[in-house]
């Protein structure tokens, strides 16, 4: 799928290679969903991005909401007017949205509402690897778990349907290996989205004051009972494989199911496999029958023993002696990290005593030997990233005694050497919050680092708290005009919407002044002297102060220059270089490298000509490779 517009093709039966997240976007069109909201976050981002690219053509309303709870509320409002809605977020985004989610379960919906949460086992791009299925237990909402892109599309439609039938939002849990796997998807028929809703006043149902909430809790529990019947008859809960060996059976869901079936084949095991696509509420009767039919049941799932504990409870209720193998007690499968074909193979081999087809022990030995001196390659700030300049200035001005609570975004990478700006990182906005407790108790100069999109998402209430309680912190907003880490989505500071229309930009400095911050500065981090001066003033200010370091994302700037045909002039090292390595030690820019002779060189393919290295070089040994025709920045 080269072009998102190809999702608009109404060609049922056509097979297209699609990313799991693109398949969910196609599901939106086939389900007739009218409202889609999101806050971007890996591995969920492409759901919103794909819908955004086709929304106006498809007649769907799409927005990048300011954060996940707002996204969920906008979708919930629409669904309560009878319009089908989908909201998409990453797993930790669901924590932000949880307050609304859990009470929305009491209220319910009239139009189908799908709440996509994309989990990130292995923390490829996240601060934790929580298992969002536990939110299904907490909220009593139905939960679906697709195992591949085809199911991701089909189950989006199914989710909207059962949501409408049960009058409950449906949690739709994917993982990286579902969201970010490409596979053939057979298209279904497009449905015309309905955007016209009607609000029916019904305070007992919709106004959750205590007197109304209490009975709605019971209504919710009745709905869960009905949802159990749906789960028993769901086409996504079934015995996907019938084996000849009836002693043992396997229960699995999501990507774990894929690893399980291939591992069984590799080990030559012919077991029944119960595949669960609807994992809340569980089909208790179906699981009970499966337990009765087998002496041993192996539960294979990623992250928490969610299915396992429920299955053990079902076995207990039925008084069954079936042995259940999983993660609790003997840990046949790991509870942390991403599951893999190997981990499943090893677990199955341990339970069954079957010999492994590969000697992983000798493979590991050989591999450890081969990669012993191999340097790691973690993600880093791009060459020319304005945050690198900001971090350099912050560290230069405030030094090693200052403390630097930081936040979620590209700029989280500033914690790494040589920039060393980032002392505590928890969740969206927490840099600004923790800074206040840290400053209060240590008295140390405290600079809270936060990005532009994160500022709008979660910074504002924390900023108000700092101002009102007179916390002496400096808030450094690293503004690069975009939500960069997740793929350059718009936010309220950009002036563009998810529908690709323009709107008025909201200026961070105006928000800060509105919140009562008395010292607010806006600087370009590449105007080094001016930026240093502003930060010094902010540090000297006895109350909350805020400095916006503003320069566009280097990736967007280079792209824009190429589009406009503006030449990018890289820097080069001249003969004055003494090889003191200050540029490398201070900046860690990926465009600055060492040659085989260990002399400094600049990779002209990577350098975007920001000039930071020329500024820090004590010998003026770095210069532009030719005079610019026009001045950028």
């Amino acid at each position, binding site marked *: 799928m080269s072009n998102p517009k190809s999702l608009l093709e109404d060609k049922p039966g056509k097979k297209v290679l699609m990313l799991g997240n693109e398949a969910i976007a196609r599901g939106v069109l086939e389900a007739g969903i009218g409202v889609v909201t999101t806050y971007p976050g890996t591995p969920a981002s492409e759901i919103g991005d794909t819908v955004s690219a086709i929304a106006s053509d498809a007649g769907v309303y799409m927005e990048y909401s300011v954060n996940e709870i707002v996204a969920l509320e906008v979708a919930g409002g629409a669904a309560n007017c009878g319009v089908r809605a989908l909201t998409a977020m990453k797993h930790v985004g669901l924590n932000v949205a949880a307050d609304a989610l859990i009470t929305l379960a009491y209220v319910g919906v009239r139009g189908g509402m799908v709440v996509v949460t994309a989990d990130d086992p292995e923390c490829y791009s996240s601060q934790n690897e929580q298992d969002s299925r536990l939110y299904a237990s907490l909220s009593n909402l139905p939960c679906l778990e697709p195992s591949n892109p085809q199911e991701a599309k089909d189950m989006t439609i199914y989710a909207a349907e059962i949501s409408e039938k049960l009058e409950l939002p449906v949690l739709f849990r994917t993982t990286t290996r579902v969201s970010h796997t490409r596979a053939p998807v057979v298209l279904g028929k497009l449905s015309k989205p309905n955007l016209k809703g009607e609000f029916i006043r019904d305070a007992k149902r919709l106004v959750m004051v205590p007197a109304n909430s209490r009975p709605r809790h019971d209504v919710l529990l009745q709905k869960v009972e009905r949802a159990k019947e749906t789960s028993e008859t769901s086409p996504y809960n079934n015995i996907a494989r019938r084996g000849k060996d009836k002693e043992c059976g396997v229960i699995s869901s999501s990507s774990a199911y894929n*690893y399980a079936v291939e591992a069984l084949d590799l080990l030559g095991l012919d077991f029944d496999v119960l595949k669960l696509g609807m994992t809340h509420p569980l089909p208790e009767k179906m699981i009970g029958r499966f337990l009765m039919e087998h002496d041993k049941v192996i539960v294979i799932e990623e992250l928490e023993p969610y299915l396992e504990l429920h299955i053990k409870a079902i076995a207990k209720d039925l008084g069954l002696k079936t042995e259940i193998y999983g993660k609790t007690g003997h840990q046949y499968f790991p509870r942390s990290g991403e599951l893999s074909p190997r981990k499943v193979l090893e677990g199955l081999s341990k339970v069954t005593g079957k010999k492994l087809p590969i000697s992983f022990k000798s493979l590991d030995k050989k591999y450890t030997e081969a990669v012993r001196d191999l340097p790691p390659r973690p*993600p880093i700030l791009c060459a020319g990233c304005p945050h690198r300049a900001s971090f350099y200035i912050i560290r230069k001005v405030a030094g090693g005694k200052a403390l630097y609570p930081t936040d979620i975004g590209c700029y989280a*990478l500033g914690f790494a050497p040589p920039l060393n700006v980032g002392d505590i990182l928890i969740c969206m906005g927490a840099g600004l919050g923790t800074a206040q407790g840290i400053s209060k108790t240590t008295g140390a100069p405290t600079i809270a680092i936060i990005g532009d999109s994160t500022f709008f998402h979660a910074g504002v209430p924390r900023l108000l708290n700092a101002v009102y309680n007179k916390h002496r912190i400096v808030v450094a907003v690293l503004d690069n005009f975009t939500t960069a880490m*997740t793929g350059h989505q718009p936010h309220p500071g950009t002036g563009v919407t998810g529908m690709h229309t323009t709107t008025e930009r909201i200026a961070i400095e105006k928000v800060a002044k509105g919140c009562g911050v008395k010292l607010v500065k806006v600087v370009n981090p590449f105007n080094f002297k001016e930026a240093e001066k502003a930060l010094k003033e902010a540090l000297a200010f006895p109350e909350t102060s805020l400095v916006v370091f503003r320069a566009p994302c280097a990736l967007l700037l280079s792209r824009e220059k190429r589009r406009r045909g503006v030449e990018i002039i890289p820097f080069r090292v001249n003969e004055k270089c003494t090889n003191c390595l200050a540029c490398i030690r201070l900046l860690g820019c990926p465009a600055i490298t*060492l040659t085989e002779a260990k002399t400094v060189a600049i990779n002209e393919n990577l350098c975007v000509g920001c000039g930071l290295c020329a500024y820090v070089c004590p010998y003026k040994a770095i210069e532009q490779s030719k005079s610019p025709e026009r001045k950028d920045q």
Partner: protein
Amino acid sequence: MKIFNLVLAGVGGQGILLAAEILGTAAVKEGFDVRVSEVHGMAQRGGAVVSMVRIGEKVFSSLILEGEADVVLGFEPIETLRNVRYASEKTVIMVGDERIPPPALTLKGESYPKIDVILEKLKFFSKRIVPVEASKLAYKAGSPLVQNAVMLGALAATERAPVKKESLMEALKELVPKKYLNINVKAFELGYQYVKNLDLNF
């Protein structure tokens, strides 16, 4: 039919995800089942990138078991070595020539490891190693950015993947930006000819 397992490894910006998508699209064109795994987000920014492509009549897992890769398509020598655990003595390991020093290494004041040392270590796993002059050929085709097309051409020449050269070319034409189509096609052909001329006997 046995599932064909391919690991693509390199650095963000080398066009690995697009190469994987081209392979996947070619597989769909020929009626195969296919899984392409990707990692997005943080790992894109100059970080290590791995993608896996599995092609067969019926494929479940999007990840490959260690030791089970048919081909490791390495876009960068260090990253090829980092993913060598997917290789066995039967695996063909193709290694591109663009060396991208990890900043952590530069920061320690060290230069890029000698290429022979990396190739020696790859041989712990397989002797079937094919160095590919991908950046040189990409430059010849017209842009350092089309190494991915060179590597795809090189893969096609080994005839290990169960997709025809024509299907790969067709998928490439669908997926690369029109503006860069000609240099991509040229890069693909250069990679293909390069490996054909090596006259590999495995």
